[in-house]
């Protein structure tokens, strides 16, 4: 075991000291995953405007005014839908970043605005789009405040508001008779002031951080949808497995070439002279490749979870998928190493074959976007099985039974790669 660990440790050292291998194994896949993620996200949301579903349940003037202002906002791409369910489904399937609901209770809230009430607005957001959700909440507050001058300029509305205030004062048990009298006079003065206001659209905005902010007459209730299952929650759910494909391809290329390099630089002689068997050599080399592939996968998952809010549907199953895919590609690296007799072969034909397999296996075009013929071809690529095995527990949230086939294929590829590689080339020479 010590000799196996010594070989693995040495190979990892060599790999991490090769800037090219480090770039193509760790940096390039991360860049690719981020790039694809942002590109696909832009396409899904129609550029920089935030796609929003709007449900107007209230027939109040304030709801109509708010709906109009929302539709006219340059940062929002508002589409009216008829029901909450339709809006929620749109958020769930990624059509909309959020759904805004102007409920029937808006009118009642507006009536009680100066007597303890507030105007309710509801928003349903996708949990992975929290950044946009914050923007939407701010936008709703701003646009709702804009409705106040309209509210006060509406005679019927202001009458209902002042009447509601008078009723609240009359019913109050905390206020004395003198206080009630003074408050009544104040309301009468305010009502006269509102009546004397000129009619207009009242488009002025409330001062940021002014009294309105502390008062909070608008209550925006943000509701997060439960995590979706079976569909990618964001474009990064798709691009992260793609990044893994390229990282693993880089890793396999590096380790397949390393076996050939041992031969060309003469160090294979030292390995063969040492009191180790072919199995030790294969296990040591394979272990280094396995650890590196696992590190690539872990790096991308950690970055996806921490930077872009990816949620792992089945962590345990994902760990198993990562382990088996790393094992499969360690076996593939040993197979390629066995086939290649020179560094030129390993760097040319070996990496070329990997590139092709990665391309048809979902490395560039996601498998579900591929035309049928390419999807059929992809069955020949080990990368396809790794992508399926990783996507299953990452975002597809598939049943364990559906994971069996890709996991078994990966395990078979690993064992097959090690077994075949050991009978070829450099490993065949070892005992």
């Amino acid at each position, binding site marked *: 075991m*010590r*000799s196996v*660990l*010594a*070989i693995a*440790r*040495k190979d990892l*050292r*060599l790999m991490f*000291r*090769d800037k090219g291998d480090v770039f193509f194994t760790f940096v390039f896949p991360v860049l690719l995953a981020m790039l694809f993620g942002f590109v696909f996200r832009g396409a899904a949301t129609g550029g920089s405007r935030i796609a929003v579903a709007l449900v107007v349940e209230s027939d109040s003037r304030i709801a109509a005014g708010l709906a109009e202002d929302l539709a006219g906002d340059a940062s929002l791409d508002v589409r009216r839908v008829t029901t909450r369910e339709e809006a929620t489904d749109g958020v769930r399937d990624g059509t909309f970043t959020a759904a805004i609901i102007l409920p029937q209770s808006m009118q009642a809230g507006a009536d009680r605005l100066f007597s303890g009430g507030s105007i309710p607005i509801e928003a349903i957001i996708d949990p992975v789009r929290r950044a946009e959700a914050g923007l939407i909440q701010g936008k709703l507050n701003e646009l709702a405040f804009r409705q106040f001058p309209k509210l006060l300029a509406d005679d019927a509305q202001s009458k209902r508001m002042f009447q509601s205030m008078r009723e609240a004062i009359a019913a109050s048990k905390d206020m004395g008779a003198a206080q009630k009298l003074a408050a009544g006079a104040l309301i009468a003065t305010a009502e006269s002031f509102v009546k004397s206001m000129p009619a207009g659209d009242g488009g002025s905005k409330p001062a940021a951080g002014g009294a309105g902010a502390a008062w909070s007459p608008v209550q925006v209730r943000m509701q997060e949808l439960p995590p979706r299952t079976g569909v990618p929650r964001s474009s990064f759910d798709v691009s992260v497995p793609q990044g893994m494909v390229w990282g693993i391809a880089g890793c396999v290329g590096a380790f397949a070439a390393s076996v050939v390099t041992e031969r060309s*630089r*003469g*160090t294979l*002689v*030292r*390995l*063969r*002279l*040492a*009191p*180790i*068997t072919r199995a030790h050599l294969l296990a040591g080399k394979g272990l280094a490749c396995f650890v590196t592939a696992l590190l690539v996968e872990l790096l991308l998952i950690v970055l996806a979870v921490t930077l872009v809010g990816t949620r792992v549907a089945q962590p345990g199953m994902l760990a198993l998928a990562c382990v088996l895919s790393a094992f499969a590609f360690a076996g593939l690296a040993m197979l390629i190493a066995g086939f290649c007799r020179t560094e030129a072969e390993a760097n040319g034909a070996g990496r070329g074959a990997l590139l092709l397999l990665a391309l048809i296996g979902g490395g560039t075009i996601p498998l579900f976007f591929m035309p049928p013929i390419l999807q059929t071809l992809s069955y020949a690529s080990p990368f396809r099985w790794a992508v399926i095995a990783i996507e299953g527990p990452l975002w597809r949230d598939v049943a364990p039974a559906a994971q069996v086939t890709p996991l078994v294929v990966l395990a078979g590829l690993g064992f097959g790669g090690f077994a075949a590689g050991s009978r070829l080339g450099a490993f065949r020479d070892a*005992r």
Partner: protein
Amino acid sequence: MLTLRDIRRSFGSTTAVDGLSLQVQAGEVFGLLGPNGAGKSTTIAIATGLLRPDAGSVDLLGLGSPADAEVRRHLGLAPQEIALYGELTARENLRFLADLYGLADARSRVEGLLAMVELDARADDRTEGFSGGMKRRLNLAAALVHGPRLVMLDEPTAGVDPQSRNRILELVRTLAAGGTTVLYTTHYMEEAAKLCDRVGIIDHGRMLDVGTVPELLARHGGTAGEASDLESAFLALTGRSLRE
């Protein structure tokens, strides 16, 4: 110590070793001389167990064939081509080999060898930046990490400066004085004459003669102690025609 009996090995239609027998005694420095293509490297590869002979047998220390990992443990090889990891430091190279052999005293063994080949000051430098002589010395140290009883040095002074060559020859003498058996191949006749207790001259895969330098000179002409005379004896045995 090392016995090769009637070894034969062919590569396609080319016979590299043709019925070669050889016996290296414990504690001696045995020189294996031969022109290019004589079969020296093939013989070394068979003697180390790296290559299987088509016929014949190899025995090391009476333990059997070095194809057996436990027998091979007593064997060290400094190949003619430098066999080091350029991206690793001198210390890391030796430490890797020490771990590969599962040495319990790996650290002290590595430090001792670095001092012996006078590379302790450059121990943490990557070997890719070493001079040819430094690489040769480290290549030799790498063969000695596990304390083998028989060391095979395949042209260990090829392409090095006189200072490094002198240091390597001193090291070989030190090893022999410490009881290590050395099988030494070289093209430099004066090295063989100075260093080797016995010399075997091979050509066309066959052992032409074996003996001490004076014995060879007595049989094939020349005067004992003269390097040029050993060369004369060598040429008398192997001929003067150019080799590929």
